[in-house]
């Protein structure tokens, strides 16, 4: 247990840039943009019709339409978080593609292998870093981002004389943020085939794991499609793309989970977020996770046996 904790710490030391600074910097930029939108361009947007802004919220509040105002306010705060989760997807993808390949390339694998730590523990620590540690860090940064951006909106709303407390009461920001954290375990299961595939490519490829990890599934999809066009076969290309190629590439992006689970409509975000857990009953999730586990096992075996460092 202690060794595993230090292995996770080791991954964090090495990838602080991706795990911590990438979401913080992206979040900072989003906050700046928000400040600009709210402070400088707020009314501009309204005049051109597109998008939402502070004035819309104020208008709705003035009409006594508190629920709509709350929803709009929620959306303003949710937007940056969606971006941050896209950043997480890229971070996890590049981490997975690099993690086993890079230690071979810089030969540091010879140092790590000089310690009495098994390959399975090492690879599993990398997996947990990708699907648990990185998402949790991003979620906490989302919470901070949510609080700061709520404050950014609070100032002009408050200056406009609105009852900010009452507006907050008509939102579900706190439960939304908690829900985000609650989704991490489901995300870990959902992302397993993609992360497993990336780590397998990382363990296997002699050079450019990115090409293997990303180009091969895309080319496979293209070839299947062309094959289908030319010959009178009935290959279920759509099904394959959706259930294999899409899972292997896109499952690292948390939003793909929300799309796949087709989250239910409703007013209570906690219920909406937790409704994603209905996925636990789907074969699709578990087959993907099993495939991911098999690929991780292969990556462990590869790390143990190959000696071309």
């Amino acid at each position: 247990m202690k060794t595993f904790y230090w292995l996770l710490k080791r991954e964090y030391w090495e990838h602080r840039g991706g795990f911590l600074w990438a979401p913080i910097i992206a979040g900072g930029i989003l906050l700046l943009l928000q400040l600009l939108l709210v402070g400088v361009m707020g009314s501009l947007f309204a005049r051109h019709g597109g998008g939402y802004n502070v004035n819309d919220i104020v208008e709705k509040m003035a009409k006594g339409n508190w629920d709509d105002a709350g929803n709009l306010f929620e959306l303003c705060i949710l937007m940056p978080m969606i971006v941050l989760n896209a950043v997480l997807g890229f971070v996890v993808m590049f981490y997975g593609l690099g993690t086993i390949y890079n230690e071979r390339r810089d030969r540091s694998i010879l140092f790590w292998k000089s310690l009495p730590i098994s390959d399975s523990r090492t690879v599993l620590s990398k997996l947990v870093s990708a699907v648990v540690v990185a998402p949790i860090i991003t979620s906490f940064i989302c919470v901070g981002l949510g609080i700061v951006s709520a404050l950014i909106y609070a100032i002009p709303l408050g200056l406009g004389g609105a009852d900010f407390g009452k507006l907050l009461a008509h939102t579900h920001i706190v439960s939304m943020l908690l829900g985000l954290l609650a989704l991490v375990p489901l995300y870990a299961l959902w992302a397993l085939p993609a992360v497993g595939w990336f780590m397998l490519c990382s363990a296997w490829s002699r050079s450019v794991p990115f090409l293997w990890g990303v180009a091969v599934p895309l080319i496979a999809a293209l070839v299947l499609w062309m094959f289908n066009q030319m010959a009178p076969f009935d290959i279920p290309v759509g099904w394959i793309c959706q259930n294999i190629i899409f899972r292997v590439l896109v499952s690292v992006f948390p939003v793909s989970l929300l799309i796949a689970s087709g989250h239910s409509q409703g007013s209570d975000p906690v219920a909406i977020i937790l409704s994603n857990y209905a996925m636990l009953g789907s074969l699709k999730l578990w087959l993907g996770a099993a495939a991911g586990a098999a690929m991780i096992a292969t990556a462990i075996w590869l790390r143990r046996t190959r000696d071309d460092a």
Partner: protein
Amino acid sequence: MNAVVSASGLSKRYKFSAALDGVSLNIPAGRIVGLIGPNGAGKTTALKAILGLTDFDGNLSVLGFDPRTQRNALMEQVCFIADVAVLPRWLRVSEAVDFVANTHPRFNRAKCEAFLARTKLQPKMRVKQMSKGMIVQLHLALVMAIDARLLVLDEPTLGLDILYRKQFYQNLLEDYFDENKTIIVTTHQVEEIEHILTDLIFIRDGRIILNADMDSLAERFSEVMVNADRAALARSLHPLDERQIFGKSIFLFDGADRATLESLGEVRRPSISDLFVATMKGTYA
């Protein structure tokens, strides 16, 4: 006495060549063994096999473990420095010490910190900010603080200046080595380890062509400096090698009679590098 390393019929084939070809050897505890051979002779493959980093045919037992299947248990007792630059560039000194301290059961943190205090390394320093010599100092400090029974060094001083090289071996001898430990080292800088070795193994084309302790080596091999007028006589005794210096010939003999040699000229103990060059003649031809 249990052998630290015992191998028989150790073989490993790569696509185009045999890296190890039926190697058999026994290394007892408390020895410092030099594994010397030309490039591509199979030194590194032999070390990799001992460390469980590669697959092989034949029998090999290291400290009683099979490196193929019991690698994790083995690595608690074995340390290795494989080349100068294997510490990852992002690692800080403090992180390296923390990590090894918390993952290696036989690591002595105080010892490591004492070693580090004798260097210019700072806890916040990253490997990428260090010179090659400093990286090796860090690696050596980590390794010497581990109470291991076998230390494997593969070209540990490659690319270091002479100050670091001398210091490296001096530290090993003074602060690390004792009768319970065994060191296996490969290097091309043979002259520098000559006086610290207890045993010498020459390897060529995957085969061991010489395996002797230093004392018996001195008895077996001798070098004689012969004047030109007696050179023909010396040649008739089948020397291993002959070279010319200042109009005199130097002959290298394997197992020749001492008294006969002394009648030819001045007899002395050959250096390992001369012995090496003589034995490896024609390797690259």
